[in-house]
């Protein structure tokens, strides 16, 4: 049987990106600082992976100001949600195959 590796989304190869997407699947919006705290990562690391997801058009970025402080929030796009679901399905299939081997 052929292993559907090509169905795994390259954009989610990184663990952090997958986690960001998981958070945005169950929350309408999530802000940068909360994400940073939750994922326990650095500004630069988080920002670069968010940029990556944005480039794929998997997430939308909203920039706003709370008083003087910039407040950036993120939202998963329909395309991103579909890709995430497909990625999960592919992972599931991989597990099933390895169990039957």
């Amino acid at each position: 049987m052929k292993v559907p590796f090509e169905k795994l989304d390259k954009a989610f190869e990184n663990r952090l990106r997958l986690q960001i997407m998981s958070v945005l699947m169950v929350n309408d919006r999530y802000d940068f600082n909360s994400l940073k705290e939750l994922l326990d990562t650095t500004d630069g690391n988080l920002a670069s992976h968010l940029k990556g997801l944005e480039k794929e058009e998997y997430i939308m970025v909203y920039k706003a100001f709370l008083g003087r402080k910039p407040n950036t929030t993120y939202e998963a796009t329909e395309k991103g949600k579909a890709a995430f679901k497909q990625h999960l399905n592919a992972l599931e299939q991989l597990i099933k195959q390895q169990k039957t081997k």
Partner: protein
Amino acid sequence: MKEKEIEDELVSIRSMMERSSKFISLSGLSGILAGVYALVGAGFIYYFIYVSVPDYYQITENTTPIKGLFYGSNGEIFYAGFDYNLQKILLTAFLVLFASVGTGVFLSARKAKRKEQPIWSSTSRALLFHMATPLLTGGILILILIAHRNYEIAAPAMLIFYGLALISASSYTFSMVKYLGLCEIILGLIAACLPGYGLLFWAIGFGVLHIIYGSMMYFKYDR
């Protein structure tokens, strides 16, 4: 990709989904304590409504004082106790509220620290907002009703609005909170059918149910 890696991947997805959308530091112990405060408060309020009312104040032409838990249905005496001790009753109710909220915040903050989770996160903010909207609406409505001497609606309305607040907040924390909310609403509707028994239902809803629910939470999640 090895099987172990895939499973790790799935575990991390699941944990992120839960931790980002549910506030899991809610303390069970604080539920138990809130129940105890409510029972003590109900004891004081019982005293204010039914016992500590001077005879000249409660005896009117048509009524004779009867002692007992349920004689609230005897309208005159029920109203006499409320009118006479209204400030003390409101003060007791607010003290119970502040003590419960204070204990809840303190113990949840402690639990969050132990679990290394932020207490002030976008999840706890969402939880607070969805809880506060029905709660403040109900609270203000009840104060307005009390100002118009509609005392007997206070207890059922408190139970119903509290239940609605719990249900609206429950998607941001343990699903058990939803069932507590449903119980409070049912209790409030029954209380509304039985005017005069409000204090009894209030004590069951805020006292007994909190103690039961708090102990369930405590044994399931706190330890």
